[in-house]
């Protein structure tokens, strides 16, 4: 037997650093299934990357790194190649979003209709900076480019739903409604 354990210990730390902790378990199990299903239905390898990422983010709200690595493996790409696409597009995010994703439109029509003020008020109401997520993961706040609802300016989206002609009063009402809705769901069991 060569070495002895102490030498093994010492060398290993020098070469490989501390042990890498597995983060796989923190990912929603649903996500793996979505990837498997999508790849089975859509042959074509790399070309399917962006639609697949859309699908995953649509379901679980963000793109955790273990999932990016899994997608890479499934499509025959390297993980960092997937990440370079994810990081290039503003739309994709690697941090978890809230259950209600508040997306304030900053397109031209909204912008001249005081979208910035709307965004600031909204931020105060939920206690977030742009890009943040509340601790209970109920809300996340972000600014987006034109959502194509210029006639309703200033406008915003809550998940897939458009809310237009926003005023501070309506914002307060909306947030209150969302909060109480979430509370009711919690009390009444799972969604």
């Amino acid at each position, binding site marked *: *037997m*060569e*070495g002895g*354990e102490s*030498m*093994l210990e010492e*060398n*290993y730390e020098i*070469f*490989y*650093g501390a*042990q*890498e902790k597995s983060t796989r378990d923190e990912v929603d199990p649903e996500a793996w299934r979505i990837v498997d299903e999508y790849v089975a239905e859509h042959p074509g390898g790399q070309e399917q990357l962006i639609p697949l990422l859309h699908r995953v983010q649509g379901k679980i709200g963000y793109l955790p*790194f273990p999932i*990016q*690595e899994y997608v890479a493996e499934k499509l*025959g*790409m*390297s*993980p*960092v*190649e997937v*990440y*370079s696409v994810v*990081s*290039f597009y503003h739309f994709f995010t690697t941090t978890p979003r809230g259950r209600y994703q508040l997306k304030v439109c900053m397109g031209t029509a909204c912008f001249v209709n005081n979208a910035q003020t709307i965004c600031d008020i909204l931020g105060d109401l939920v206690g977030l900076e742009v890009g943040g997520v509340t601790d209970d993961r109920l809300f996340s706040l972000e600014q987006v480019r034109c959502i194509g609802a210029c006639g309703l300016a200033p406008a915003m989206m809550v998940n897939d739903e458009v809310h237009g002609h926003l005023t501070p009063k309506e914002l307060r009402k909306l947030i209150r409604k969302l909060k109480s809705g979430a509370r009711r769901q919690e009390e009444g069991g799972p969604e």
Partner: protein
Amino acid sequence: MKEQMVTITVNGRQVEAEQGGNLLNLLRSLDLDIPTLCHDDRLTPYGGCRLCVVERKDGRGGMIPACSTPVQRGMAIETQTEAVIESRRRNLQMLMLNHRMECPVCERSGDCRFQELIYLYGTPEEQLPFELIRRPIDDSSPFILRDPEKCILCGTCVRLCDEIQGVGEIGMVHRGLEATVTTLLERPLDCEFCGQCVNACPVGALIVRPYISGIPAWIREHRKSICSWCSCGCELDAEIYGGKIVRVSSDPTSEPNAGTLCVKGWLGWDLLESPERLRQPLIRKEGRLRECSWSEAIEAVAAAMIRGRDQAKPAAAVASSRLTNEDALLLGRLITEGLGSDWLGLGPDGGLRALKEGVAPVLGSARSTITLSELRDVDYVLVLRADPGRTHPLLKRELIRRHRQRKLPFAMAAAFTGGLERHARPFLGILPGSEDILLAWLSRELAERGLLDEGLEGYRSWVDSLKVWTTEKTAERTGVTAERLEELLQHMLKAEKLGIVVLTGHALPGDEAGTTEAAASLVAALGRKAGLLVLGEKTNLQGCLDSGLTARAPEEILEALAASKIGCLYLLGEDPVGSWPRSMGGSEALEKADFVVVQDAFLTQSARAADVVLPVAILIERNGTGTSPDGALRRYQRLVDPPAGVLQDGEIIRTLAQCLDLKLPDDDDLFEEMGGVKDEGLPHLRPFSTKPRSSGGEGYFLDASPQLFHSGGTTVHSARLRELSPDIVVRMAPEDARAAGLENGDTVRIVGEGREMLLRARLDRCVKPGSLVVPWRTRENGASRFITREGEVVRVRMRRS
């Protein structure tokens, strides 16, 4: 497909060009100086740096990037107008604004394309309002420092890593001013450390720690030679100062490697200065090896040789296939003419039996029929026995390049993997040692379709012997599903030109000679449709074969030794005690020799048992020629001198010859003598047979074959290679580790054949599930202890310790 020729106008001159060809290449072929920073001939066009802009004057005016523009009929191109020059100047200025300018102290100063272009074009006087974006140097990786403030985002490193190395460790992440080249999650590099990224970087954004010298580029001397780690024969470009190597890279135009190297060829040279190297001859006195003078050592050796000759106990020499052609010929003369002995042979190096017993009897000469470079253009390649990324890295890069850039597929049939399997179409993860059966099945299928040359001598009996290998039986014996076999067959049927590659190396499971014979038979029967390439383990196997160093097989020499028929045993770079399979009985045989001379750079286990040890120059410290697997001549140029008091093999042999009153010709005359290999006849097929191998039993398959960072024996003396892959690590597939409840870094006991080893677990996605990768030799010992016979399949158990 013939390309159409069209006429275009370049700087007012009419030029014939290929429709759809690359405009940049055309302009450069006209001797026009077109600057580029992101362009690399080896990669698909990128069009990132915009320095190759030229002006188009034929109606569709404007600035176009030459590197990514196809030639079209009627184009009118101007390459040196004021607008072109100004555009390049502006682009350079913008690159410069976000580049930390520290040319006087930069490691790449004087060897930087960006610097050259700024000297050439200058930059506009007025300053743009922009401040350098500060980013720290990433020094978390072994050897490679990444300095994002100097990076100009040309993407060459990213593209090389992906398109040629097939690794994709780094990528361009984020966008706009935030864009940077990094790894996933900014982890330290965990890659093959091939150095392609560093050598291609046009600026100083990638720096290699061991090659930081502070010596300006313009006072370093450039010398070229051939890498002597494996048999691929990559061209090296070494920069020398003060008799020492300060940097190693390779020229993008070099053949056959097109500027690419592997970790051994790039960084492994620190072994030349290893403190473990022998620097003085040793002689046994009162039972112990003591340092002595060269004259004392040589006299003792010559006396022992003469004594043996007089007592009718001939001397025997066993050489490593790293010997140069000249040294091999000299050794042959010394033993046959000087000592009247015919006990002359090579060690059991990978490839020797493949060529002698596999290729020669079938094809008529012990030589491959296709070159590494020719493999680029065949339609389909079948690689057998190993992952070339581990044994012959250049082949791996060629396969990746074919596959990624030109969609030319290849198949790999091997029991153990190293990462290339992801690119193979298909990958056949066969049971260890069953490649010959796969080839027999393929031959049978092709013969049934009438695609083979039936007129070959021995064809009938050969085909009859294949009959038993039905798809069903083959699937059972190789462990490959019938669907996968069919996929391979379909690819083979589609290909007009085929390449079959047999890889060799220590501890690869299976019968090297039998597999190669099966491959050679198939190639012979396919006729001009196919070529065979056998890559030996060590650099000059072909040359040593051609020089006639194979009169006796290594087993035969050991047997004669054990029977006390040999007087003096002369070992050149071979270590029968330490590195030959145990079943050959190296250590017992050595004890029987009257006098043992070991000529080696390190104190091997055989050297410890020797009577005289002669220190010798190795690898790139030698001058001479070699022969590549396809028969082409290679010139090994001495890049650095060996340590003082250390001689080259040939010099030692000449000195010995003088003591024996033998006149040896000059190296130049020897060179003339090299007649090359003799053709021994027409192709001749022999019935196929396979040796039954027991792959039953339980446990993990032990994979002690060459690893990327360690090819076997010599590499363990390189501290840098050891740093990248400490020899205390057992690599395993993540799923195996999970099943055994192991994490990275856990201590593991490997048990098998009544022996055991204690190692640290390393999870590695490149390892095939069901196998454990264990270093063949460490400085202490290694997995070689588990393996007793060449080609043996060994199973071991793994326990958490």
